[in-house]
């Protein structure tokens, strides 16, 4: 085990220390150190290929770290294992919405609500408490009527909603959303915004990636700008977006 108690976190819920990820010669994330305070919404922006998604993949254990350390709520990890992340308090959505396609909407939700241990899971049929929770979530994302359809038969917007619903089933402190607003029409966009605000309202920390600057301005309490796998700027939204470096690298105007 690589867990160890890191030096005082200073109110940060999630920190990276010199985190790196290389794909061959490409440095997707290059010795990146960021500190994200507890609560609120943090947005990560940057041009395509700047390492935003890679960073989320590293934080959620979907990709192994090449170097550095991730500190989640004071616990330092040199190896982040995907199956341990919920226990550390992290969950995520994927940029290319990854549902369990040939399973029903209902099963997509129930599967993350059940016992994680093998033998209890073998004996377990749908528990009333889990079913209630699943119904609550499906109703809150407006998918209750669709519960019997296969996930593969849903529209793109519905798939996004279901994926967000699926992470809501986990009661963790940090939610990572990889482009939750991409490709949605305005009504759906408002709905997703509402859900995210709702999660924030319950005291959870939200970190999201977005290319939509209006939404970033509207929602985020702080912003991190990545460029070529390194941190270009961070801080209060308006301030950062006005800085010349950021305008040159990202906004290009």
């Amino acid at each position, binding site marked *: 085990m690589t867990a160890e108690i890191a030096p005082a976190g200073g109110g940060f819920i999630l920190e990276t220390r010199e985190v790196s990820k290389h794909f061959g010669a490409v440095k997707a994330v290059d010795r990146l150190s960021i500190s994200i305070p507890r609560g609120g919404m943090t947005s990560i922006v940057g041009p395509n290929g700047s390492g935003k998604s890679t960073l989320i993949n590293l934080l959620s254990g979907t990709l192994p770290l090449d170097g550095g350390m991730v500190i989640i709520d004071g616990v330092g990890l040199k190896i982040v294992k995907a*199956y341990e992340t919920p226990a550390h308090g992290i969950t995520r959505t994927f940029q290319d919405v990854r549902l369990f396609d040939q399973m029903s909407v209902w*099963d997509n939700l129930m*599967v993350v609500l059940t016992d994680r241990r093998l033998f209890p899971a*073998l004996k377990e049929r749908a528990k009333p408490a889990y079913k209630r929770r699943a119904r609550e979530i499906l109703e809150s994302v407006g998918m209750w009527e669709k519960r019997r359809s296969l996930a593969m038969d849903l529209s793109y917007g519905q798939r996004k909603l279901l994926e967000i619903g699926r992470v809501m089933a*986990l009661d963790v402190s940090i939610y990572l959303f990889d482009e939750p607003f991409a490709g949605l029409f305005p009504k759906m966009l408002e709905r997703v915004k509402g859900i995210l605000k709702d999660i924030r309202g319950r005291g959870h920390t939200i970190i999201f990636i977005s290319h939509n600057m209006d939404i970033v301005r509207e929602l985020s309490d702080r912003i991190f700008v990545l460029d070529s796998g390194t941190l270009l700027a961070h801080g209060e939204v308006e301030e950062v977006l006005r800085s010349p470096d950021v305008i040159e690298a990202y906004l290009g105007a």
Partner: protein
Amino acid sequence: MATYPHGNSRLRALAAGLSGSWRMSRSNFELWANLLVIVAAAGFMLWRGTGFAISLGTFVAIWAILAVSLNLLVGYTGLLSVGHVGFFGIGAYTMAILTSNPAYEQLRTEALPIFAWPFFAVLPICMAMAGLVAIAIGVVFNRFRDDIFVLVSFGFAVIAFNVFLNWEGLTRGAFGIHQIARPAIGPWVFDDEVEFLLLVVFFLGLVVLACWFIVTSSFGRVLAAIREDEEAIAVFGYRVVHYKLAIWVISAMMAGLAGGLFASYTTFIDPNSFILLESILLVSIVIMGGLSSIWGSILGAMAFVLLEEGMRFVPFLPTEFIGQARQVVLGLLLVLLMLFRPQGLVGRYKL
């Protein structure tokens, strides 16, 4: 996998568990596929007479145990294993060696060690042996998935066959093991064909129940999620390798059980019963019947045995071509099925 939010109908859930999906069973194709196979099987059995029908039924039941257990891997978990015959062989050889017949062995110069244990004591050992080997290789196989997994399971089938063929001190190699004991409880020996058929059907029933229990549980739902997206389900706190190992071992134990029954039924085994081709045929049965469908695997086993035995009676076919012709017909059927109905006879999922 199907779970019903309004769990108001147990019958519906039962039907769903057995046939993979309630909704699909309404489709006409399924109805006709079921009718065709069952009527053909019944007609064939009536035509050939009772004795033939009983032996056919026994083979169907043994293949069905194998197919249902393989479906746990291929259909429910998405692990396309072509090494299932290895576990089948381990079960069969365990049965053959541990029940070795003293009267027969004493007449031979290279005799097998004489255990002469009773059938019902050995049957659990057949399962345990297959399970132990499955644990040992499963720990390694767990690293692979998709096409690489197919290749390593292929490797296992080849290795298992070569062990059966070349470990002559234990398996007597190509000569095979003869006079394998039939089951007996005290003085009551299951030497009657009907008794054996009932015994095999009883075990098939147990296997079906076990599978149904597994695939309708929360555990089964996680297996389906692993089939759909291994990385995504891991993020939700599931240790995928444990789930895959567990179902791999359970499936192998069921194949070991089928092996034990097979050895005792035929009373003679040699390595030729455990070649890779048998594994491929088994995968074909599972896909033909329908992935993620217990009834599909049973139906697939029926269709397969029917086809295999039925070819024997095609009038204009020379005897020496029958073996090959079977495989050609089966292969052709599989290609047609994949073209026009990729989910199999009664299945719902695609590979």
